[in-house]
C-alpha cells in the first residue's frame, strides 16, 4: 500500500484507558471508538467536541503518547506501530497542554526551553542557538534568566511554545492551550502561533471549546463519543444544524446571521459563511427582500431599578506583603439587592483580591466592606462577624472542584453546614436543596466526588457553597474550562439563582458572557475601578474604545452590518444594543422594516 507522505492518517483507531480485567463483565469504555481522520501536511485543523468526547486522546495518539489498541496511525508516511520510527515521529511532533504549570520542567526559562532538544541529544553550540532563536521567536528572550514560576499565564504558554519550537517539529498540537488565558493573552498567543505556523511551515492542530477560535482554521473535525462525526471547512460545519447534539454551538456571529435568515425566510449557504464580507453582503441582500414581517418585541424581564444596597465596599485598599504596588486601591462599590454584578478586567488586575475581601478571607486593613442583612449590618473588619459573613456571602473560587475532599458528594456539601453548627435534619434538607439547584441526581450525590465528570464536579463544589443559602454569591470564572453546553448549563444555574433572589457577583474575562448575564458591570484596571455601568452603557463603541475594552463579539459584528445597512437605507434608526444574538437579530430586522416599510407604502 503506498503510504501518503503528505498527511497524518488515522484509520479505525480504537483506544481505551481502562485496563481490561479478566473477570470484568462490562467491556472497557472506549475513549476512541474506531476513529478515522486525515490531516494534510501544513494545514491548520481544529478538533472540536464536548468534554470527554475523546479529542484530547486523539491528540495523544498523533504524538504516540498513547498507543492505539487497534487501527493504523501513519504520520507523513511513517507507521507509528514501527518501533524503529517511534522516537523519530515523536521528535517531530510537539504538544502544548492546557495547564501551563504542569508542563514546565525547568526552574529557569532557558533551562526549560532546552529540555526538549537536550532529550533529543542536540549538541552545543547548536543547542544554544536553537534555545536563543526559540526564545526570540516567542518574544521571551529578555526573560531567559528569569524563574519560570514568576511568569504570567500567557507567558508560560509562550514558554511552552518556545520549548516546542526548539525541538524543530513538523506538527504542533495545542490541547486547549488557550483555555486558562484571558482574552488579550489569548489573541496574542494565537497570533504568535499562527505566525510560527507560516514561518516554519508547521502542521497546526488545535483542540478548543471556543467556536470563534475554530473559525480561524482551514478545517474542523468534530469528535463525539470517540468517533469523528463531521469533517470539513468551518463554513460547511457551521452550516449544519446538529452541532448541539455534540455539545457544540455556532460562533456568536453565525447564531446572529441564522436568526436573521430565519426571520426573513431566507437560507444561508456555505459561500455566505466564508468571510465577514460575504456574510454581511448576504445578510444585507436578505434584509432588502420585500415583504419581511417585523418580529414582535419580546418583553425583557428586567428587574426594576432596585435601590436597596446589600453590600457596600468603602475605600478598600490592599497591598500584599513584600510588594510596593497596591493590589487594589480605594475601591468604592455598592452592590444592589438581587442584581447580577459583573467584575471584569485583565488577569492580575486585582479581581481575586477584591472578592477575597468580600467574605473576609482577607480582612480589610484600609477601608471596609459592610454587608446589610435582615439582622443588621456586618463589617468585614469585625472579627466577631466572620462566621456570619461567610454564611451570608458564598464565595466560589475558580476551579472549585479542586477543593472537594469528602468520601461522598453529600458529605462534601454538608461540610460548611456542619461548620455552621446546623442540626442534622435541617442540614440534610439544605444539602439536597443545593444539589437539586445545581442539577445533581441522587445517584451523583451519593457517589464519590472523584468519580464525577469535570462539569459535575464543578457543580458539586458549587453546591457545597450554595447549601449555606447565602444571600450573596460570588463566583470567580464559574464556566472556565467547560464546553459550550456546560457553559450554557452553568449560566442557566446562575439565572435560576438570581430568579430565586440571590444577589450574584460574577467575575469574568469573557465579555460576551458578562454582557448577556450581568445587570451591571464593574471594570477594574490595575487595582482601581475604571467604570461601573450597565452593559449597554459600557459597550457602546465610543465608550468601549475610551475604556480600552473589547466589545462583545455580537456588538462588533452587528456594528459592521449596521454600517452597511446605513448605506442601503438612509435614515434608518437602530434600536439599542442587545447582547443575545437572537434578540439583536430581531432588533435589526425591526429597524429595517421601519426604514424599508416606509419606502414601500
Amino acid at each position, binding site marked *: 500500500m503506498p503510504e501518503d507522505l503528505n498527511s497524518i492518517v488515522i484509520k479505525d483507531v480504537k483506544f481505551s484507558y481502562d485496563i481490561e480485567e479478566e473477570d470484568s463483565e462490562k467491556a472497557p469504555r472506549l475513549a476512541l471508538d474506531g476513529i478515522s481522520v486525515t490531516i494534510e501536511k501544513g494545514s491548520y485543523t481544529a478538533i472540536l467536541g464536548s468534554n470527554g468526547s475523546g479529542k484530547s486522546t486523539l491528540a495523544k495518539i498523533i504524538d504516540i503518547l498513547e498507543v492505539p489498541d487497534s487501527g493504523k496511525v501513519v504520520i507523513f508516511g511513517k507507521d507509528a506501530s514501527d518501533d524503529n520510527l517511534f522516537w523519530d515521529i515523536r521528535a517531530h511532533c510537539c504538544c502544548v497542554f492546557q495547564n501551563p504549570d504542569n508542563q514546565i520542567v525547568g526552574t529557569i526559562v532557558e*533551562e526549560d526551553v532546552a529540555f526538549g532538544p537536550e532529550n533529543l541529544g542536540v549538541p552545543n553550540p547548536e543547542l544554544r542557538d536553537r534555545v536563543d532563536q526559540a526564545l526570540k521567536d516567542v518574544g521571551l528572550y529578555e526573560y531567559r534568566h528569569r524563574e519560570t514560576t514568576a511568569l504570567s499565564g500567557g507567558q508560560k504558554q509562550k514558554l511552552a511554545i518556545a520549548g516546542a519550537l526548539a525541538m524543530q517539529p513538523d506538527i504542533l498540537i495545542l490541547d486547549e492551550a488557550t483555555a486558562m488565558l484571558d482574552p488579550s493573552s489569548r489573541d496574542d498567543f494565537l497570533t504568535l502561533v499562527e505566525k510560527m505556523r507560516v514561518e516554519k511551515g508547521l502542521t497546526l492542530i488545535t483542540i478548543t471549546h471556543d467556536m470563534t477560535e475554530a473559525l480561524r482554521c482551514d478545517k474542523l473535525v468534530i469528535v463525539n463519543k470517540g468517533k469523528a462525526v463531521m469533517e470539513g471547512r468551518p463554513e460547511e460545519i457551521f452550516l449544519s444544524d446538529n452541532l448541539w447534539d455534540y455539545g457544540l454551538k455556532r460562533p456568536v456571529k453565525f447564531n446572529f446571521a441564522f436568526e436573521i435568515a430565519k426571520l426573513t425566510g431566507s437560507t444561508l449557504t456555505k459561500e455566505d459563511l466564508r468571510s465577514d464580507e460575504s456574510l454581511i453582503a448576504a445578510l444585507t441582500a436578505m434584509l432588502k427582500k420585500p415583504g419581511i414581517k417585523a418580529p414582535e418585541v419580546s418583553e425583557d424581564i428586567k428587574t426594576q431599578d432596585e435601590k436597596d444596597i446589600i453590600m457596600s465596599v468603602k475605600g478598600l485598599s490592599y497591598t500584599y506583603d513584600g510588594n510596593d504596588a497596591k493590589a487594589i486601591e480605594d475601591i468604592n462599590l455598592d452592590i444592589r439587592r438581587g442584581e447580577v454584578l459583573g467584575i471584569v478586567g485583565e488577569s492580575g488586575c486585582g479581581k481575586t483580591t477584591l472578592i477575597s475581601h468580600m467574605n473576609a478571607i482577607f480582612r480589610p486593613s484600609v477601608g471596609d466592606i459592610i454587608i446589610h442583612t435582615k439582622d443588621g449590618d456586618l463589617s468585614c473588619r469585625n472579627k466577631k462577624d466572620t462566621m456570619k459573613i461567610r454564611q451570608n456571602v458564598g464565595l466560589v473560587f475558580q476551579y472549585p472542584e*479542586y477543593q472537594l475532599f469528602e468520601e461522598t458528594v453529600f458529605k462534601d456539601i454538608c461540610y*460548611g453546614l456542619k461548620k455552621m453548627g446546623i442540626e442534622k435534619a435541617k442540614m440534610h434538607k439544605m444539602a439536597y436543596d443545593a444539589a437539586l439547584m445545581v442539577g445533581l441526581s441522587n445517584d451523583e450525590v451519593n457517589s464519590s466526588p472523584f468519580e464525577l465528570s469535570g462539569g459535575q464536579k464543578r457543580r458539586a463544589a458549587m453546591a457545597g457553597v450554595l447549601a449555606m443559602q447565602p444571600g450573596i454569591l460570588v463566583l470567580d470564572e464559574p464556566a472556565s474550562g467547560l464546553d459550550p453546553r456546560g457553559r450554557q448549563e452553568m449560566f442557566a444555574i446562575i439565572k435560576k439563582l438570581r430568579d430565586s433572589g440571590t444577589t450574584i457577583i460574577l467575575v469574568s474575562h469573557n465579555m460576551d458572557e458578562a454582557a448577556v448575564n450581568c445587570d451591571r458591570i464593574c471594570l477594574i484596571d490595575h487595582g482601581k475601578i475604571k467604570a461601573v455601568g450597565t452593559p449597554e452603557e459600557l459597550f457602546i463603541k465610543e465608550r468601549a474604545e475610551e475604556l480600552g475594552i473589547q466589545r462583545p463579539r455580537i456588538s462588533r459584528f452587528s456594528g459592521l452590518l449596521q454600517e452597511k445597512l446605513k448605506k442601503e437605507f438612509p435614515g434608518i434608526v437602530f434600536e439599542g444594543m442587545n447582547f443575545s444574538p437572537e434578540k439583536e437579530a430581531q432588533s435589526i430586522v425591526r429597524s429595517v422594516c421601519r426604514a424599508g416599510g416606509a419606502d414601500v407604502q
Partner: protein
Amino acid sequence: MFSKISLGRYYPAHSFLHETDPRVKTILYAVYLVAIFIIQEPVAIGILGGIIILQLILAKITPGILWSTVKPMLPLALFIFVINIFTIKQGNVLFSWKIITITDYGIGKAVIMAVRLIFLIVSTSILLTLTTTPLKMSDALEKLFAPLSLIKVPVHEMAMMMSIALRFIPTLAAETDKIMKAQQSRGADYDTGSFINKVKGYITVLIPLFVSSFRRADELAVAMDARCYRGGKGRTKLNPLHLTAKDVLAGVMFTLLAALVVVVDFSLR
C-alpha cells in the same frame, strides 16, 4: 502564607557563588556540614560565622532574602535552645525551682546548639538552594554520584526527581494557599480550636492537595513524554558543567577556611 516560603527556592542573581560549579558547592556543603557539627568553642563558631558572612557577600544575598530563609526555622531553633537549657544540669546553677534547673554551662551549650542549626540552614541556602538552580543541582549530584550507576543505582532518575520536586515547591505552596482560602470561605477554621481539631482541619487541605498533586504528576509525565524525555542516556546539556581554575581555587580556599576553624576549635579544647 505558604507562598512566602523560601526554603528550597532559587534566588536569581549574578554572583561569584552563583557561577561556581555546583559540584564544588556540593562538596563544600558536605565539608561545612561536618565542620558545623564538630566545633564547640565559641571562638571557632565566631570565625565560622565570619566565613558565612563572607559567603553571603560573595553570593550577593540581601538581608531580606536571608531573613525569609531563616525565619521559618526560628521556632525549631528556639525549641532546641529551650530543650538544652532545661536538660543540661552541669555547671554553676543560676536558677532552680522544683525540677527546673538552669546552669551557665547549659545556657552556653543551648546557644551553641541553636546557632549551629541556624548556620546549617544558612549554609544550605548559600551553597545550594539560593545560588544553584534545581536542574544544575541535579546535574551536580548526577555527576558526583555517577560511579554508583555501575552498581545499578538509578542516579539520573533520582537527580531528575529531586529537581522536579524542588521546581514544584512554589507551585504547590500557592495551591495550598488557594485550597485553604476556599475551605475557609466554607467555614473552615485553621487558627482556633483544640489541637485535634486543627489537625482534623488540615485534612480538608491535604486531601485536595494530594489529589491535585497526582493530577499534576500525571500531566507532567505526559508533557515530559511529549518532549521526548527518555532518561539520561544520550542527553546533552545547554549549560554543561565546566570545572575552571576559579572553581578549584574557590573549593580549596573554602575547604582550608573550614579546616582552619576545626583546628582552632581543637586547639582551644
